[in-house]
């Protein structure tokens, strides 16, 4: 059974803190993604990675960075958290680069920045 796990379901941080969100997939997928989900806005792509150490910006990369040192792990980093980054963060993976390929999502991390 395919599985994408995220390190925390809920996280509370303070403004200015550095925040790490971790995602691990056990399906040997090439591609991994980070989205944020906000009411009325659906899912918006922050960054994606199509290979180890490779990354591409999505629609809303500002204020975020990512790291992919191993194939199974994709980290989202908030260098200096701000209140407008309070959101649900979803990680996903897919096996091939073809963008029509099914994405498998983790359960999400609800981040609150105070």
């Amino acid at each position, binding site marked *: 059974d395919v599985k994408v796990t995220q390190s925390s379901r809920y996280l509370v941080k303070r403004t200015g803190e550095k925040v790490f969100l971790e995602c691990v997939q056990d399906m040997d997928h090439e591609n991994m993604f980070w*989205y944020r989900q906000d009411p009325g806005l659906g899912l918006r*792509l922050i960054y994606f990675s199509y290979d180890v150490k490779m990354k*591409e910006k999505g629609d809303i990369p500002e204020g975020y960075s990512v790291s992919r040192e191993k194939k199974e792990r994709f980290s989202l980093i908030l260098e200096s958290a701000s209140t407008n980054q309070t959101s649900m963060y979803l990680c996903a993976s897919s096996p091939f680069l073809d963008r029509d390929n099914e994405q498998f*999502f983790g*359960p*999400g991390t609800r981040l609150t920045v105070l």
Partner: protein
Amino acid sequence: LAKTTQPISMDSYEGQEVNITCSHNNIATNDYITWYQQFPSQGPRFIIQGYKTKVTNEVASLFIPADRKSSTLSLPRVSLSDTAVYYCLVGDQSGGYNKLIFGAGTRLAVHP
């Protein structure tokens, strides 16, 4: 940039057929249209995908007209467990993986 439009919410009763339409005015020529389902406290999961005409699987049907500017997800005989948010996903003509566009989602409530 492609824009998708879905109804914000819909209500239905158990046993009814539900149709959710997504408008996508700038879909890429070669892209598929994909629908995802999301339950509370879970990530979205794939339901169905199609390119044109009609696709059916064990969960739903997807109707796509010839101009591909919209698609309709059809859920036959819904039950309470179909209460969820449904997203349509399309690509943008400008290309690139960073141009996958999720709709804002349709919140479906199924009542007894």
